[in-house]
């Protein structure tokens, strides 16, 4: 056990965690030349395409150092705030963390939030100044920033480049020298923490665990404490690039377990695995369930695909336990699901995975956060409003509460003014302002979560020219003035276009929604009035003029191919439209409210 090191790589988005992991794998000879590729651990297509990590990924390396053989268990984590729960789980399985800081970008919002997560779990922090190869790198200053943040010595900061491989040997030496070996007693009853699970369509659920005490053997009868279910360990092993079956995984080590479980919900991340006959007395406290932050309806573009959509969502949930959904119906769209997501990126990813992995074309409706409503009749009973149609009639409404977050924004001093105006426009209240250096400022706001959902990230990026990072965590509910803005097309309310909006913004947003819909809904053979309304009161109006001419004069010199391709493209677009009444609405129009400032 003294030669095992368990560590994770944490950082702000894009600071180079996965790339540094590549170099560690190369350097320790954990991958063959043939297996090598950039961000090897980002194994999902979507991760590779977007260049971001969505899921944590554990892998074991063997490394000889000063004549001794070491087993290094590494977990690469995502940087995006939507997936911070992945980071907290990974941290729980480790004794140390590499805190990566981009030498050009310095400390950013998630650097800090992930650092605190690691410190809360008493992890040994190894600061790594990454991307030192960049011409724009600023190693001295950024090292100072890190020293200030951690209170460490400048010599503790390892300079490295995931791109060139510079400093990798030092990183490995620090992992071995500075991170404590796991403690634990191999002779005690089995006590292992489930820190992740992956669904494999052929083998069922693969459970990833970290053994704290005792050991887990192939064939052993085990028990999951929280669910109180018993299984046989059909296969245990270590997580090399490919899984490597073993007879036994001992205290301090990380491994995977296959029990033939088909339902991912049986494996609760944070649960404790123990021996069924000789159970441990110390269940690990476990994790809080991840709570969805935004809700939106997901509907099939083609109503006939409802059952198939359900099946696809269920399968997706096996891979992604943070996705929750419940059936709902809409007058405009028919049957679909109200889904809860960790954030906007998560929502986008789910929609994209449905399309590419399950070939489901879906409509996602305007997202909203979860409100609490109280009626005059029963002012003490919470009505949870996850859907605009759940909001009680204004006349019966006593009050509404909305979720607030504490937002942390790190930006350059030059942009403080811009960022502040944006946050105030978004109903934020500044609670703190700290100059990290003369150049860099940390701002804290209490803000309604709902405001983050509506185009906050893009605006923040614009007003700060890209020099602002953002992190948040929920701080509870606060009173709110909420109205439902309905959209009428051809004088008919389209419920799927309704949005819950703060009363003060309703007028402006209603107007912008009409304008945006006018832009997005293709002209049809009749005029289509678009109206925004609060209750019976129309607050805005636009008209989509009828299409009268839809034919090109001539097919020039017999250029029929080009024309055909043009029309085929047009038809493809139509496949993504939904007929509501006699109006055809393109898929993206349902999310129009998110793009009002484009």
């Amino acid at each position: 056990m003294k030669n095992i090191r368990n560590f994770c790589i944490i950082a702000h988005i894009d600071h180079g965690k996965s790339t540094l992991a590549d170099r560690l794998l190369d350097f320790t000879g954990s991958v063959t030349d043939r297996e090598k590729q950039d961000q090897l651990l980002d194994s999902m297509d979507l991760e590779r395409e977007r260049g971001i990590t969505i899921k944590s990924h554990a892998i074991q390396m063997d490394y000889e150092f000063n004549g001794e053989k070491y087993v290094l268990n590494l977990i690469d984590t995502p940087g995006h705030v939507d997936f911070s729960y992945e980071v907290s789980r990974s941290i729980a399985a480790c004794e140390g963390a590499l805190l990566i800081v981009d030498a050009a970008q310095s400390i950013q919002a998630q650097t800090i939030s992930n650092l605190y997560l690691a410190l809360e779990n008493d992890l040994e922090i190894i600061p790594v100044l990454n991307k030192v190869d960049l011409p724009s790198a600023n190693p001295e200053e950024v090292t100072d920033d890190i020293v200030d943040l951690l209170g460490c010595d400048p010599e503790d900061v390892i300079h490295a480049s995931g791109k060139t491989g510079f400093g990798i040997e030092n990183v490995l030496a620090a992992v071995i020298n500075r991170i404590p070996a796991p403690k634990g007693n191999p002779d005690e009853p089995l006590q292992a923490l489930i820190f992740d699970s992956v669904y494999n369509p052929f083998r069922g659920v693969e459970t990833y665990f970290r053994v704290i005490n005792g050991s887990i053997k192939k064939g052993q009868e085990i028990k999951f404490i929280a669910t109180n279910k018993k299984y046989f360990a059909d296969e245990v092993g270590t997580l090399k690039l490919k899984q490597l079956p073993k007879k036994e995984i001992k205290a301090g080590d990380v491994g995977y377990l296959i029990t033939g479980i088909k339902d991912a919900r049986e494996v609760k991340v944070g649960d404790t695995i123990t021996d069924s006959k000789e159970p441990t007395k110390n269940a690990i406290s476990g994790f809080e369930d991840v709570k969805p932050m935004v809700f939106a309806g997901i509907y099939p573009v083609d109503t006939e695909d409802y059952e198939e959509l359900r099946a696809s969502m269920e399968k997706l949930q096996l891979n992604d336990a943070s996705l929750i959904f419940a059936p709902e119906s809409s007058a405009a769209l028919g049957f679909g699901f109200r889904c809860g997501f960790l954030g906007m990126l998560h929502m986008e990813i789910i929609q994209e995975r449905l399309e590419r992995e399950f070939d489901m074309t879906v409509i996602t409706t305007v997202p909203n956060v979860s409100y609490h409503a109280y009626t005059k009749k029963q002012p003490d009973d919470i009505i949870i409003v996850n859907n605009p149609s759940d909001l009680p009639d204004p006349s019966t409404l006593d009050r509404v509460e909305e979720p607030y977050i504490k937002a942390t924004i790190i930006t350059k001093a030059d942009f403080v003014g811009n960022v502040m105006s944006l946050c105030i426009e978004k109903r934020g209240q500044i609670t703190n302002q700290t100059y990290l250096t003369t150049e860099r400022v940390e701002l804290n706001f209490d803000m309604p979560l709902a405001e983050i959902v509506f185009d906050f990230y893009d605006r923040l990026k614009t007003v700060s020219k890209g020099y602002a990072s953002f992190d948040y965590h929920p701080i509870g509910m606060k009173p709110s003035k909420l109205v439902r803005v309905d959209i009428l097309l051809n004088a008919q309310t389209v419920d799927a276009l309704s949005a819950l909006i703060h009363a003060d913004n309703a007028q402006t947003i209603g107007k912008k929604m009409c304008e945006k819909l006018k832009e997005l809904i293709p002209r049809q053979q009749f005029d289509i009035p678009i109206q925004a309304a609060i209750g019976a009161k129309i607050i805005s109006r636009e008209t989509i003029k009828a299409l009268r001419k839809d034919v090109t004069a001539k097919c020039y010199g017999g250029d029929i191919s080009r024309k055909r391709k043009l029309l085929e493209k047009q038809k493809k677009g139509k496949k993504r439209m939904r007929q509501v009444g006699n109006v055809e609405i393109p898929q993206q129009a349902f999310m129009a409210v998110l793009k009002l400032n484009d």
Partner: protein
Amino acid sequence: MAGIYIHIPFCKQACYYCDFHFSTSLKKKDSLINALINEIKLRKHTLQNKRIETIYFGGGTPSLLNISELHLLIETVYNNFEVVETPEITLEANPDDLTTEKIIELSKTPINRLSIGVQSFFDDDLKMMNRAHNASESKKCLSVATQYFNNITIDLIYGIPNMSLQKWHKNLEIAFSFSVNHISSYALTVEPKTALHSFINSGKYPPLNEALALQHFNHLVETTAQQGFVHYEISNFGKPQFFSKHNTSYWQGKWYLGIGPSAHSFFGDQRAWNVSNNAKYIAAIEKKEPPVTHENLSNNDRFNEYIMTGLRTIWGVSFNRVETEFGSNTLNRLKKTAEKFIAEGLLNIVNEAKPSSTPKKGEFLQNTSSNSVLKTTNKGKFLADGIAAELFILS
């Protein structure tokens, strides 16, 4: 049977709305004509010995060529292909080129059809489109041309901003007064990257008005019908016997070979097009490598093209042909997707009875197969592309 299209990529000046391929510099004219001649020779086998029924000089402005250049090109076609006895040979010509002298000369060549780019009989319209001719040139050339050619078509543009219905009507009346037997008439269209496009964007020109264009179109359909023209394709109106054979072959799936930069060809299950650049074209032909891009058509491509072209023409989309060529599933699908448009009065199904064989003596005329044909109604014509797209099958 097949056709040959020859593209003459030169114009005196650029009309504001035009996105065709042409150059206003005549410097390369000689080497280009040389290249055209060589391309005809190089590609003489592409039509697989099909006989040539139509030759079409398009552009650009083919009337910029002199008689001997035209002769040379026609002769080259004759020397390399088998041409039917009386082919239709069309020359696109602009009024400013058609002097009395030129018309007389042209009438002595094998060219037997003139397509004259009149566009409008009003000078203000011509100016606003930057045409190179004026209205009196048009009238004069028409009065002469009609004496020497009996097969004449003129181009007219409608839907020009601020063109009143009266003015449009007047344009048509003047056209009729010359007893032309064919009219090609197009709605002014704003193509990307044209001068017109930027003028409208900058507010220098008023934007196009679709309602106005539709009004003009309906008027055009009505009045040409009264004059005995058949509306046989969205933009083409001809007296019986005077339909453009060459253009019709585009819509009816006949083979054609396109010669010259940007020219398109069709070989049954393959389409091809030449590079749209005079210098590149000439260089490639000099190397004896015609700069052609080929595209093989899948079943779906062919079906979609049939729908697209069929709905533009009086011949419509034949259910028999769809069934034999694409199968009964495709036919059923087509019928189903067409229902909506039939209900809206944009498409209709016409039953065209036609005897499948001449009955022998004593036989009842019983094996008459009635063929249903899907066509655009007058109301649907102006929306034909959008309708076609919806009937498409995507792979």
